[in-house]
């Protein structure tokens, strides 16, 4: 191998390192930029779902709307988060998709509400931790 070959290998390794660092910086700014708004929105939706359950029959028409909003927010969050939170979001999306909007099972809805709240708390925890990563 010549010096030129070593030079090429070093350039490739540097390029990979730089691209990795750029990806991490981009992920950090995406996380700190958009995620707080999305998590606040999800928090609002979970509170709305809890409020709907104060009168389950009375607010039965509002529930599918709240679940629809939650789905949109969760899908957007999933794209911006690392693998650590994606699993809980995937499971929550599955539960929301599986919720029978005609039958409207209260226990399933409570479970969705609880899991949604846990996702909010989990991501808020990561947000607090990420503030120390600057």
């Amino acid at each position: 191998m010549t010096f030129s070959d070593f030079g090429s290998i070093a350039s490739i390794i540097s390029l990979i390192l730089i691209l990795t660092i750029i990806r991490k910086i981009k992920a950090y700014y995406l996380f700190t930029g958009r995620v707080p708004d999305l998590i606040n929105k999800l928090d609002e939706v979970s509170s709305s779902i809890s409020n709907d359950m104060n009168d389950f029959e009375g607010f039965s028409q509002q529930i599918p709307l709240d679940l629809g909003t939650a789905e949109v927010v969760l899908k957007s969050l999933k794209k911006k988060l690392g693998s650590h939170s994606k699993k809980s979001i995937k499971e929550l999306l599955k539960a929301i998709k599986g919720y029978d909007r005609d039958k409207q099972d209260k226990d399933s809805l409570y479970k969705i509400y609880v899991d949604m709240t846990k996702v909010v708390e989990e991501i808020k925890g990561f947000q607090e931790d990420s503030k120390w990563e600057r």
Partner: protein
Amino acid sequence: MTNKKDKWIDAVAKLIQMTQEGRINWISRIPDNSLKKRASDQIGSVFVTSYKEKRLRLYERKFKYRPIPGVVSPSSVLLPGPFDSDGEISGTEVVLEFISDDELTLLWTFPPINTLTDLLTSVRYQVAGVKDFLDEILSDDS
């Protein structure tokens, strides 16, 4: 990923469910100054209930604080002593506590989690009798 707050979220969510289903009933109390951490605090609605020989108290505390520059989580910062009027920010926390049967002694406080706000909403809904009011007024033909 299991978060240590999960157990508290489950417990408070269960309280919400039991409140909404009428399995536990809350009663309101007159706000008490002993619940203030500082003289400038304002205590909102206070509610108590009993569950399996345990007495619970739920209330809202409004407070003011001056954020410390560089501290990004102002909700965790409360400055000691009197506040200046400049740069103050208002905050609210919902507190759930175990208290003695005579309601005079604080025994233990739940950790602060977002679900407590939803619990307070449900308790207010129950105590105010909103569901019955809506049913009656919507069925009233006069």
